[in-house]
Structure formats: C-alpha cells, structure tokens
C-alpha cells in the first residue's frame, strides 16, 4: 500500500504573510482509480498524519487525499475568509488552535459531523457535534539532558521560576512559542494565565532571561537537542515524546502543578465538497483502526483514551492533567480587547521580543 502511494509534494507559496509557506501534498488513490478526493487542511506536520491517511486509504482505495498544510494563524484566516465568501478551502480542517476552531463553529461556518463515535468521547473533546478532538496534546517542558543536571530539572512551574532566578546560565537559552504568531502557543499561554498566578512571575523570569520565541515545536526541539537551548516551555508533548524516543539528548517534564492538554480538533466546513467523506474520515480517526494508526504510527494519543494513557505514562501520582475543553468559553481567548491586553502584557514582560509589524493587530 505504501509502495503504491505516490506522494507528490507541491509547495505552493500561497501565504504572503512573512513568507509563511503553505504546502500541498497529494496522496493518490490506492486503486489508481480516483472517484473522490478528500481535501484536508491542517497545521500538523505531515509525518504525524501520514499513518492515519495510509490506513484510511487502505480502507477506501478509491479516495485520493489532498493534504494542505499551513500555520495555524494562516489556516484560520483562510478558513474564515472562505466561510465569509462561501468558498471552498477543504473538506476537513484539523488544527490544535482549539480556540480558533471553536470560533469557526460558533460563527456558523461548520456543519455537523456524522460520526456516532463522537458521543462516546469525553465531554471536553467535542462541541455541538461539529468540532471533535482527535488527540490529546499535553504542553510539556523539554530540557537538554547534558545541560540540565538531573537534580536541577524543574518538575513544576515554581521550580522553573526558581531555577531561572538562581542561575544566569539560562539567559538566551530558553525557548517557548511565539504566542503572537502561533495559535497553539497563545492558547497555552492564555490557559496558563487562567489556571494560576504563576504566569506573571514566569513571564517576568522569561523576560529577564531573554527568552527566545519560535513558531513551532520542531524548532524548539531542534535547539534543545543540540544544546543551543537548555529549556523549552509549553512544547507540544506528542512531538517531544516522538523526538525523545529517538533522541536521548532530550528530556521531558510533565509539570507537576498541572499539565495542560489541548486537542487536535477536526471540523467540516459548511462549504465542504465531500461532507460525507469528511465525516467518514473523522469517524475513521476515532475508530479503533484510526486510533491505532495515530498511536502506533505517529505516537499521538487519541482523545478517547489519551488522558488515561498519559496518566499511566507519568505514573500514578502524576500531575493533574487539565484538558482545555472545546467549549464556547474559549471565545474569550480570542476576544480582541482581551487578546490585545494579553499580548501587550506579554510584550512588556518579554522586552527582548521585537515588535514586528506582524504582531500588531
């Protein structure tokens, strides 16, 4: 099957924003006889979805899949523009920018997903039957094993704040999401601010230590691995775990005070060309076969079992895992006034972050 799969990588320079690139990958139908084409738009790095797509195509050999990737912010903007104009962007949109996904549903841009398995999911992982969480995406701290001694490793946020205060060695060597550019990073930060008062002290420490901000988890992991960074904060756990399995230089901490968990949320836009096929794809991702593909193939934790898996992985007395529910309460995070204030506070704390034109809205 994989032998038959011809992946053509078409890099299309679609976005003009800061040279943000969108890429389109084509998965021809396994049977060679294309009857339907399913278009998936996602922020995911392709490697995470490749096993799921392969499994789906082996079940549906007549389906070709067009896989569109973009940054979460670009993706959301394009999806909203398409909704406004009644235009087609994709049949399925998958994004970890949960707040944007919820807003998309709230604005009436999506349609119900015909997948009975949704009802069996935990409450936090679906809303209105129109947006559904496929995976559990914990936010973790990563560290360079060589650069951070075992007894130094911060097990929670208090320890992290203390560590950054104690030592000068982390200056310029700590990285986190650029919350201005990344929807996932923003949501992690916003939820941090909601969860505990630690957030204020944390960003103050980040600012003092000249934190570096990055667009994506991958960039932070690369730097932590080779030692350019010693610590990475609020990194997507599934990516970190996948990398750590192959790269012993990377250590992972699930913060003990609380570990946030986002989800890879899928929805079907109203203007989808193949709504039934889209529902079938989502239903497959929730099915046993789909979950196996996600779990074994890409190291992702399915929403149905993810929290339990995570808790088992961390140990019985592990930290409380706080899934961020797909709920209209997430709209607050995207409230313009609120976001402006939040980003302003962020910028003020992290004075080293340059105010590019892009961060202003």
């Amino acid at each position, binding site marked *: 099957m994989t032998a038959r799969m011809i992946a053509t990588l078409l890099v299309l320079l679609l976005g003009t924003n800061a040279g943000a690139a969108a890429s389109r990958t084509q998965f021809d139908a396994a049977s060679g006889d294309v009857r339907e084409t399913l278009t998936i738009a996602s922020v995911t790095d392709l490697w995470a979805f490749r096993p799921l797509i392969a499994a789906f195509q082996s079940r549906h050999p007549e389906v070709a899949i067009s896989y569109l990737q973009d940054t979460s912010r670009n993706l959301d903007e394009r999806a909203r523009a398409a909704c406004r104009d009644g235009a087609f962007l994709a049949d399925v949109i998958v994004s970890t920018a949960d707040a944007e996904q919820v807003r998309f549903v*709230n*604005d*009436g841009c999506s349609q119900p997903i015909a997948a009975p398995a949704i009802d069996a999911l935990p409450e936090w992982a679906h809303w209105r039957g129109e947006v559904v969480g496929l995976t559990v995406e914990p936010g973790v701290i990563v560290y360079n094993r060589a650069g951070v001694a075992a007894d130094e490793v911060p097990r929670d946020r208090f320890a992290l704040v203390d560590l950054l205060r104690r030592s000068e060695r982390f200056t310029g060597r700590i990285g986190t999401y650029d919350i201005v550019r990344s929807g996932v990073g923003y949501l992690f930060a916003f939820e941090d601010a909601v969860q505990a008062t630690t957030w204020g002290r944390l960003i103050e420490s980040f600012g003092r230590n000249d934190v570096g901000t990055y667009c994506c988890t991958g960039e932070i992991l690369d730097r932590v691995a080779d030692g350019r960074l010693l610590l990475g904060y609020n990194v997507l756990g599934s990516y970190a775990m996948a990398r750590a399995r192959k790269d012993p230089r990377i250590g992972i901490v699930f913060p003990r005070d609380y570990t946030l968990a986002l989800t890879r949320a899928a929805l079907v836009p109203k203007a989808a060309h193949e709504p039934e096929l889209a529902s079938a794809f989502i239903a497959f991702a929730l099915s046993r076969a789909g979950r196996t593909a996600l779990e074994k193939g890409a190291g992702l934790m399915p929403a149905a079992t993810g929290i339990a898996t995570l808790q088992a992985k961390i140990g019985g007395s592990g930290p409380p895992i706080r899934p961020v529910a797909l*709920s*209209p*309460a997430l709209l*607050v995070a995207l409230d313009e*006034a609120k976001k402006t204030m939040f980003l302003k506070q962020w910028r003020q704390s992290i004075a080293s972050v340059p105010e590019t034109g892009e961060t202003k809205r």
Partner: protein
Amino acid sequence: MNAPSTRGLRPRVASRSIALRLGLLLTLVLAIAVAAVVFATFRYGRSAADQAFDRLLTGAALQIGERVSVVDGKPVVDVPLSAFELLALARDDRIFYRVIGPHGKTLTGYDDLPLPPTAPAGASPRIYETPYRDTRVRAIALSRDLAERSLSGRVEIIVAHTMLARTALAREIAMPAIAGIALASLAILALTLLAMRYALRPLRRIERAMLARDPRDLTPFHPDAPREVATLVDAINRFMGRLDRRLDTMERFVADAAHQMRTPVTALRAQSELAIEETDPERLRALQGRIRSRAIGISRLMDQLLSHALVTHRVETVELAALDLRRVAIEAEREIRSAGVAQAELLHLDLSEDPVIAAGDAFSLREAAKNLIANALRYGAPPITLRVEHSKDHASIVVHDEGGGFDLPADEVGTRFARHENTPESAGLGLAIVREVVESHQGELTVTRPVEGGFAIGILLPALDEERMA
C-alpha cells in the same frame, strides 16, 4: 323503533350508533381540551426555560459590564472568562456578544450583532429574539453608565446565544406533563365508554321489554325507565293507545255494519220469496215496490258505509288545509241536486259574503254537509236552508229546517246507528259520519232550536284568518 311490529328490526345497531355519536362527540371535546392543555404546557415549559436561561444571559452581561473600565480616557473591556463559562452551561449553544462604547463604536465582539428593537432606555436589561447570521438568537442588552472624570457616557453590552438548550429544557419540562395528559385522556375515554354503556342500559331494557311483549298487547307499558327516556316511553304508549282505539273503532264498525246489513238483506230476501209465490198482480206490484225501496235502502247503506270508511280513513291520513266553507257548501248542494235526491229543490243556500275559512279536509266536510242536508230533506220540513257563516272565532256550516228535529243532546248525536225502522231507505249512518268528521276537525256538533222556530244542526269549526288561504 318506529313500528309496532318488533320482529325484523335491528335495535342493537341503532343503540350502538347512539354510543358511537356520544363517543365521537366526547372524543372531540376531549381532543380540544387536550390540545389546549398541551399548548398551555408547552407555553409554560418555554417560559420556564426562558426564565432559567435568561438569568444566564443576564449574569454574563452583568459580569462583562462590571469589567468595563476607563483607562487613559478610553473605555476598556476585559471580558471575564467566567461570563463565558456561565453561558457555556448551555452546552451546545453558540454565543455572541458585543460591547458598544459611548460613541457607538464597537469595542469588542461581533460588531454586526443586532441591537434591541427599541431605543436604549434605562439600565434595565432588554431581552429580545432576533435572527443573526444563519440562526435565531435570544439576546440581552444591558447598559452601563460610565461617569469618570475623563469619560462619561453609556456602554451597551449585548450578549446573545442560540436556543437549543432552552428548547431542550422546555421539552423536558413539558414532556412528562404531556405524557400524563395523554394517559389521563386515555383513562377518561375508557371511563366514558363504560359510563356510556351504563347510561344506555335503560334503553336496552326497554327494547327487551318491547320485544318480550305479545304483539297483540297494546296496553300501555311502564318499564323502569329514567326520566330522560320517560318521554320516549310516553310517546310509545300514546302511539299504542291510538292504535288500540283505531282497532276498536274498526271492530265496532265492522260489527255494526254487519248487523245493519243483515236486517235489510234478510227482509229483502223474505220479500223477494214472497214475491215469487205471489200470484195476485195487485199485491205483487206492492211487493215489488217494497223490494225496490229496500234495495235503494241497501244501496244507500252501502254508500254510507263506504263513505264512513273513507272519512274514517281520511281522518287518519289526510292533513287539514285551509279552505273556504262556502265552497264546501256549494259543492255539497250541487252533488245533492245531481244525485237526484227527492225534494232537492226545497234546499236554499245562505252564504256569508266574506270567505269563511277553516282548517279542514274538503272531502270529509262535504260528506258531512251532504248527510246533514239529506237528513233534513228526509225528516225535516221545508224550507231547508244550508247556511255558512263566521264569527270572530268560529266558522260554521248549519242546516236549518222548519221541522221538529229530534230530542238528543248534541254530544250523543251520531254516536250509534240510528234506527228508523219505518223508513227502509235510511241507512242511519249519516250522523255517525258527521260526528266522525267533527271530531277529526276538533270542531263541535251543534244542535239548536232557534226562537223563530224550526231545528238547526251544524258543524262549528275554529276560524282561520283569511291570509292562511294563500
């Protein structure tokens, strides 16, 4: 049950149709009542749900309003997460909000969310429903007055959500009630059917009593019947009474007629036998004359019997109609004359100048008048006058002659066959016919001896207005 012959009827079907009618009617009434109650229940459920969820809206709007502040002379909103968590309690409903600053500029939220239909008035929250985007939302608009040194004015906060949860709650509230109503209705229907069977039982009892009766038994019956059915039983009894009287009359008539016929026929036979043996031409001629007058008497008797039978039949079957008694008199006189009755030329008509209107059967009245005239011609003394006149309340047709008349009280005249054995031509049924006609017209048979002399016998009928003729 409209015939005395009870066999061959299907009373079971008839009584079931009453039950069916009652059942349908009650079901209809019940259905209307149930529909009204169901409607009211839904309304109640809806208003209860609205109350509950409007509080969520109000709470969220108040929380947002509380977080409006003035920074550097500008209104700033820090939308609280709790407000949205409150609204998210309606799990599947979409949320929209909008905060409008003092100068009408949208500070945050959905800037196309519709304002309340009426102009902002006071701080009291205004709740309204409005279409928005692809759906319908229920919204609350709340104003907050800012009174800072640097900025004063009114901030408008609008919070809206879709109504899935309301509808679900309304249904949840209404459904058990409606299930109860449905059950109650079924129970009521069942009880109604039972009650109906019970209530209709007396009818069935009467039906059985009727069926059990001897068909010849026409005496009134007194079943144990409830008041509502008593009139029916009365009607049946009255009907049977009438039938009984008719049968009696008929039997009496047949007996009388047979008796009346037998005597003259026996006499006729005897005379004809005598005539066969008679050789003396003189006496034979006398016998022949007697036979002839006897035969005439028999034929008149036959006429009268038939006339009587016909009148009796008409009494039962013909409806009375308005007619002019003068016309009756004229026709009676003409028929008497054309029948060649002896001394018919002695008859005079004395008619009122105005129409004399009464309700009656022209044929029966004519027969009665003819009989009165025939009697006067036969037994009275001329001149004989047939007089038709009317007073305020009565119309009358009277025969007057100058003879002595007879000495019977008016209410006994014509009650039985008159015997005038000395006049073999008489059948003696004339006055009986008159009486029959008088009674069937609810009139009065009058016998008077006027002061100027003579004898008058007539029929007095209730008068009708002339207009009724038309």
